[in-house]
């Protein structure tokens, strides 16, 4: 039943998430049903593969890829776009595995499969999501005085306790915040951050440094200005979101997409010898499918028969967030 319902959501004409509102305590729909549905689809597809129904396998993959690309294109929140990109990355890895282990069985279906790996992903897909996130944080900053004064007011109505401060503390803090100045500061920082969505992977490392120093300059708090809007500035420091992490994930997806498409090209041309693969990757592959970060050919390890690139994405939690994943690759 969950799979049938997932397919109904998947096969819609669009997948545009609703605007929930700039309320930090708002409940958001959980996406676990969607990822669980995608896993059920994958489980059923693997049964089809083992039963030898290759046509059905490719048809299901086509619908999955179309849906995940639609999530990236139509999604207006970071969670929708990045959920779509994560699921698309898994689809691409499955196609890569089918190419590697499926051998000639998939030869008649390669034209259809190659349509799925054609590079389309771009970091620009994150622009609407960045716009929405920036709108939410700026709105929160603009309402900061009212929020503190009313202990959250309607934003935390219901079971949530608000900010747990005494009315006197709330009053004093609310008078130390300037709504317009806070909104201006947050808007300036978030606009600088959002420019990463206009940066191609080759300029990513440089641009992320430029944005970081611009952000530090905006958030600088010299001692003589400490009493001007201290609460608003404190809010800006904690509320600003690092868009670079999300952009890096999209660039990584773009690199993966190119690698799988390169693998498809190798399969279509029947290039299977390790030396021939190395020559193709370094020659024609470097022109048609370069590593988006370096602009040069993807690294190829002849011993492991592995194509790889240096990932810029970082971990998801705690200390992992500070570390990059390292190399990401696919086996040929």
């Amino acid at each position, binding site marked *: *039943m*969950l*799979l049938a*319902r997932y397919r*109904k*959501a998947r*096969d*819609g*004409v*669009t*997948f*545009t*998430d*609703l*605007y*929930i*509102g700039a*309320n930090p*305590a*708002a*409940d*958001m*729909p*959980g996406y*676990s*049903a*969607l990822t*669980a*549905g995608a*896993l*059920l689809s994958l489980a059923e597809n693997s049964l089809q593969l083992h039963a030898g129904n290759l046509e059905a396998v490719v048809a299901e993959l086509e619908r999955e890829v179309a849906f995940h690309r639609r999530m990236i294109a139509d999604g207006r929140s970071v969670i929708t776009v990045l959920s779509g990109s994560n699921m698309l990355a898994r689809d691409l890895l499955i196609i890569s595995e089918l190419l590697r282990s499926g051998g000639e069985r998939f030869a008649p279906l390669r034209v259809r499969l190659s349509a799925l790996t054609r590079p389309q992903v771009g970091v620009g897909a994150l622009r609407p999501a960045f*716009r*929405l996130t*920036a*709108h939410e944080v*700026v*709105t929160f900053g*603009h309402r900061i005085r009212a929020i503190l004064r009313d202990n959250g007011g*309607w934003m935390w*109505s*219901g*079971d*949530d306790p608000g900010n747990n401060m005494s009315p006197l503390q709330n009053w004093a803090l609310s*008078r*130390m*915040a*300037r*709504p317009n*100045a806070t*909104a*201006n500061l*947050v*808007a*300036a920082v*978030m606009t600088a951050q959002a420019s990463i969505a206009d940066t191609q992977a080759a300029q990513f490392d440089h641009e992320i440094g430029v944005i970081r120093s611009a952000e530090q300059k905006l958030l600088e708090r010299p001692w003589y200005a400490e*009493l*001007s809007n201290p609460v608003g500035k404190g809010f800006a420091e904690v509320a600003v979101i690092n868009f670079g992490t999300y952009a890096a994930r999209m660039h990584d997806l773009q690199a993966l997409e190119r690698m799988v498409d390169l693998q498809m090209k190798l399969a279509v041309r029947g290039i299977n010898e390790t030396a021939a693969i190395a020559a193709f990757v370094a020659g024609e592959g470097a022109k048609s499918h370069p590593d988006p970060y370096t602009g040069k050919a993807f690294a190829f390890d002849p011993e492991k028969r592995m194509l790889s690139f240096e990932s810029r994405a970082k971990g998801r*939690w*705690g200390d*992992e967030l500070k570390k990059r994943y390292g190399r990401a690759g696919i086996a040929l």
Partner: protein
Amino acid sequence: MTETGNSGIRALLQKSFIRIPLKLALWLIVFAAVTFVGALAYNAFDEELSAEAKALLAAPPMGAIDDQNGYIAFLGMAAPKERDQMEWGRKAAAAFTAQAQPGFIRTPEWKEAIRSHVRIPEAQQQGCKPESAIAWPKRRMAARPSPRRLQKVTTPCCLLAIARLAMG
């Protein structure tokens, strides 16, 4: 207090090792109070909104709540078995977007519409109780397991329960 007591205190205050710190403390209190009042007065004035801020304060248009939008079907995925998915999705969409309205209150009916969206009964029995975005980090901070471990424990458990639900 007696006359003798008052003169005793006066005599004590006239001693320099008490008088100087007391004066310092008094000046500090006066300085802090003046600074606080000054900051209150200064922050009572605000600047004009910048063009960037004005542009970002404009709310993006609401997504279409129509059956062509797969998002509505997604919101209806957790409808009870006997209920129509799309009808449930429209109801959940209306409940979610209602949160954007000032004066919004979480009524029991609203909670039902929202919570049944994320609540999968069988998953709950397996210990995968969904919680609000506010409550979950609080509980996590209190229990202090490592996030990676938490993810490892809950994900297979939820997937198993969802798979069973789907097959049932």
